[in-house]
């Protein structure tokens, strides 16, 4: 399905098209990686709603990104349960290993590091969400293994991208 078709399918679930704004923004963000102004305007146009309604949602909810983020968004929970189980040490380790502070993206565009409020998985604290997946019961060793596996996945992804790109002269 195209982005427009997906947004139309979402809109069919509600009696009012404005209700489809949140699903539409999630669809658009999955398609584009983040939500720059022209994408917000495209969403407004597809749903036929005021542009300001789209802007205000994109800037109110924390899962919407109006600025580009890295390929892997490391979202470390530092709320009470995770803090009690050592999330501060994990943050220090991540900042040292990635060479960035929380809120920043590595220069190669691979990792964006954020701390987030409770992820609702406190039984496996400390927890970090990366993309769609939760990683729980983390310690420095597990965290390093996770970063290594993400880097390896990025390497494979880059090779596939490179191989499928049109070659000069073809």
């Amino acid at each position, binding site marked *: 399905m195209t982005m427009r078709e997906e947004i139309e399918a979402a809109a069919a679930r509600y009696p009012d098209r404005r*209700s489809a*704004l949140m699903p539409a923004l999630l669809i658009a963000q999955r398609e584009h990686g983040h939500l720059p102004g022209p994408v917000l305007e495209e969403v407004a146009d597809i749903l036929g709603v005021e542009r300001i309604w789209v802007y205000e949602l994109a800037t109110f909810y924390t899962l919407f990104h109006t600025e580009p983020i890295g390929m892997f968004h490391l979202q470390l929970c530092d709320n*009470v349960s995770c803090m*009690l189980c050592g999330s501060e040490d994990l943050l220090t380790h991540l900042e040292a290993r990635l060479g960035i502070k929380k809120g920043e993206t590595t220069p190669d565009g691979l990792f964006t590091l954020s701390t987030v409020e409770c992820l609702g998985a406190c039984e496996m604290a400390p927890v970090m969400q990366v993309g769609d997946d939760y990683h729980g019961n983390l310690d420095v060793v597990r965290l390093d293994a996770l970063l290594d596996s993400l880097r390896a996945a990025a390497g494979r992804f880059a090779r596939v991208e490179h191989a499928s790109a049109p070659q000069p002269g073809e």
Partner: protein
Amino acid sequence: MFEPVLLKNVDLPDGHLLSSYEAGGGYQALRKVLGECTPDEVVELVKQSNLRGRGGAGFPTGMKWSFVPKRTDRPKYLCCNADEGEPGTFKDRIIMERDPHQLIEALAVSGYAIGAEVAYVYVRGEYVTAIRRLEQAIAEAHEKGYLGTGVLGSDFNFAVHIHCGAGAYICGEETAMLESLEGKRAQPRLKPPFPAVAGLYASPTVINNVETLACVPHIVMRGPAWFRGIGPDKSPGPKLYCVSGQVRKPGLYELPMGIPLRELVEDHAGGPLPGRKVKAVIPGGVSAPVIPEPGLEIGMDFDSLAAAGSMLGSAGVIVIDDSTCMVKVATRIIEFFHHESCGKCTPCREGLNWAVKVLRRVEAGEGAPGDLEQLDMLCKGIFGNTFCALGDGAAMGLRAALKHFRDEFVAHIEERRCPFH
């Protein structure tokens, strides 16, 4: 002997599939109400059970349902609050991930009771696995006629839609959730009108938590007397307790409502980590005032905890041991509420911003005489003066920390450092 019902499927390898759910007696409650009960009779069963809302407020569910007007030209809506954002809470996620059909059946039975043909399940956006499992379960249920036009050959039509949140704690507040469902910023509405009269799209709307709804099919099958027979009469039933923090066996426990907090923490969750002692427990998510160790005999139910100045809330039980600085815990809690304040009303938006600044300097050993009185004054200014319960929860949590652990706050100011570092 207590028999778990809400979690009976969650450890099955394919507990999220329709075949597993049906094999365990699933969808019999829906068959039963469609075949044997009028909608009013289902509402009456729930009233008789004394089921109270598991989202935090503990409002009687049957009474909430009975506020929906009988005669109205407008469609009625059922909304399920699955925005589970109260720190320390993870019970609804586990139901949705591992036994989604339990929720789908509960929605259909409850929708039939209140006369709704459409339900929206508002799931927090981070719960990607839960959302996928629910979508799969909805598709399976449609195929077998548990959802759709003419459910199981009756004249009851029912559809369930997932609405994915996007990271805002305030959506757990029911009117903010309705705003969000309407595609707006999630800011609470003034009440009245209450949602039962004018909720989603100004239509009569019932909003219930996942765990609350999950109780309904069991009440239908086993009867209200069974439900009332578990735990205290005014606050009965099986209950999910989320245990986390500095404890040996964190996890989700289904036990009777009203069990002593000490039994939950020490017997079921294994007690403190080796060499440590429990210092305090937050019994119901970070909105619930902290209970210092000598108070752990308290029963885990709405009325007992309220009488002791705390609350059951979402039953997010966070265990804190003697290695932990309570000023740090209080600071983190108020940072959370400040971050999640929707910005609509002044006491919450400005008061929490101010409180965070004072708490951070006290925690850093840079507090000044008068800072604690300043915090007392801020709590007073916030509590009872905000649109919704977010501000109240923040003020109650901070007040309890200041009351029970004032010596730790004073030590930070007098010694000009954190005594725990």
